[in-house]
């Protein structure tokens, strides 16, 4: 380990819409180690999926990478042409999408769609590709793969389709797998199976996985490291256990408080975070969480905090973690 596969530096992504520039991702910097499972959590519109699409250069008009670099194998993906990206997508980095129902083309067989990727990138014969497809379908545990290879997506259930999507993503043994809420559209039992599958795949192939989700349960089960995003900014990142045990950012704390406790007899009420997600169109340089945060200071309205080291591999972008601010607050508390 300790071998960085992906380094994202100061990434800025905006959508230039009719009503104005929507700053979906702002100044995001992070790195991913080879073989780890990194979770990115955040609510809808926090920019987590946009980060993945930016890595793949799949942002749709009017979205654009405004600034920053995405270093993968020492090459900046943000500067690559579409043609150059075609050799990376599906071969070195592949992606699984949220809705397996609509992510497979309805007019081609599942086998055809997987084989197509292999043929495109590895220039093998169709029969060779089909052999590989069969192995892949078995790897993702699709029963009676031999007949299923010729099935159309509509003949598959939701879970099977997501398995097929995973097989598709793994077709060329990519170094990195981006999973954009892969279980959101599936029911709970299938979710668990999908997570087992992804974990096994990581174990067997040592594929790096970035898992975007809003499900903290999934994160706690799957991830080595977690990043929390809010309003297009990275709020906190830490090892998985630290996020749950000693969250640093008020937003992370709020997020954890809003998980229902299913312990027997627990009659505790959920504490949702007050307010609503930030408006990303109005220019605002303060902390995006300032309007909902219980600890907002004047400082928070003026600038977003840099990331402070608050533990081993644990960074938090909150002014409260600034030692100077902390000292000041302590002083005031003593008076």
């Amino acid at each position, binding site marked *: 380990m300790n071998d960085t596969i992906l380094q994202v530096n100061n990434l800025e992504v905006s959508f230039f819409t009719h009503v104005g520039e929507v700053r979906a991702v702002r100044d995001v910097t992070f790195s991913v180690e080879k073989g780890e499972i990194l979770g990115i959590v955040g609510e809808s519109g926090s920019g987590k999926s946009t980060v993945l699409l930016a890595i793949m250069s799949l942002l749709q008009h009017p979205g654009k990478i405004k600034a920053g670099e995405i270093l993968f194998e020492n090459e900046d993906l943000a500067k690559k042409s579409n043609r150059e990206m*075609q050799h990376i997508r599906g071969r070195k980095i592949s992606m699984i999408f949220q809705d397996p129902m609509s992510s497979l083309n309805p007019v081609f067989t599942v086998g055809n769609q997987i084989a197509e990727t292999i043929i495109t990138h590895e220039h093998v014969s169709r029969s060779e590709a089909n052999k590989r497809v069969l192995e892949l379908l078995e790897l993702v545990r699709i029963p009676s793969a031999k007949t299923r290879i010729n099935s159309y997506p509509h003949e598959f259930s939701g879970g099977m389709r997501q398995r097929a999507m995973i097989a598709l993503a793994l077709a060329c043994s990519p170094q990195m797998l981006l999973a954009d809420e892969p279980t959101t559209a599936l029911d709970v039992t299938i979710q668990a199976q999908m997570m087992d599958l992804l974990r096994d795949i990581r174990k067997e192939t040592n594929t790096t996985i970035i898992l975007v989700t809003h499900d903290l349960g999934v994160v706690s089960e799957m991830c080595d490291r977690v990043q929390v995003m809010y309003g297009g900014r990275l709020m906190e990142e830490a090892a998985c256990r630290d996020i749950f045990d000693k969250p640093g950012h008020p937003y992370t704390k709020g997020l954890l408080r809003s998980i229902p406790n299913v312990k027997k007899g627990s009659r505790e009420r959920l504490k949702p975070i007050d307010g609503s997600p930030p408006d990303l169109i109005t220019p605002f340089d303060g902390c995006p969480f300032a309007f909902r945060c219980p600890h907002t200071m004047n400082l928070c309205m003026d600038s977003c905090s840099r990331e402070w080291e608050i533990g081993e591999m644990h960074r938090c972008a909150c002014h409260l973690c600034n030692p100077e601010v902390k000292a000041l607050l302590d002083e005031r508390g003593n008076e």
Partner: protein
Amino acid sequence: MTKYILKRCVSIIVTLFLVCTITFIMMKAVPGGPFTTEKNLPQNVLDALEAKYHLTDPLWKQYVDYVKGAATFDFGPSFKKDGVMVSDMLAQSFPVSAKLGLVALIIVILLGIPFGILAALKQNKLPDYLATIFATLGIAIPTFVLGTLILYVFGSRLGWIPTHGLDSWKCYIGPSISLAGFSLAYVLRLTRSSMLGVCGQDYIRTARAKGLPERTVIFKHALKNALIPVVTYIGPMTAGIMTGSFVTEKIFAIPGMGKFYVEAINNRDYTVIMGTTMFYAAIAAVMILAVDIAYACLDPRIKFQD
């Protein structure tokens, strides 16, 4: 599959029988007959004519004779053109209309679909605007204006194309363009909107995420889905184009089926109306069947129910 087609053929026969019956009833319901126009004929001549063409028979007998004839593709003689059989008229005029229609159909498909795709890919850019303007004009301008305009400008003023007949390939230019105009514009617009809809689908994003070259994404993954609604329109359109258009044939003086059809209605030429209607209905029914078969080839979600 075979069973399905056979079943559909039976239903086509039933449809044609109904068309035949309704046409017969409507012809008889309209007052007047083939010999009541023009100058007044003496009563005995009229009687003799009606007797000759079996118009004095009881209605049910006329009907039965019609159906019997239609079943063997024999619609009897024309009432207005002495000694000309309806089936001969069809046999002469249909190939003319069909040849012209085929040229128009090729124009529609070869220009409409590619330019529709182009417009969709260059959405809100110059090619899209040009295509949209063209499509709007094509749909808004009626055939008689388009045909007359082509005839006047290119035929009579510039002398680039002949003004009538179908003797050389040049003769096909004017009428086929005027015949294709509306359908071309419609197919273009349909392809564009269908393509735009498909390109926003998740599976297109998946295709791109697989690292497929853009042309494979467009021409394999998007096009096959986008063609489904286009095929729906092209089927019945083919039936319409192949059987000729009265307006185009009249403007360019072409002895096709469309002209016969309208003239027959004006003349109350019962047998010709019957023949052309049945013929058109048969072609339309076959084209619709062809569309349904094409559907199943394009979209595996559509299955024939045997």
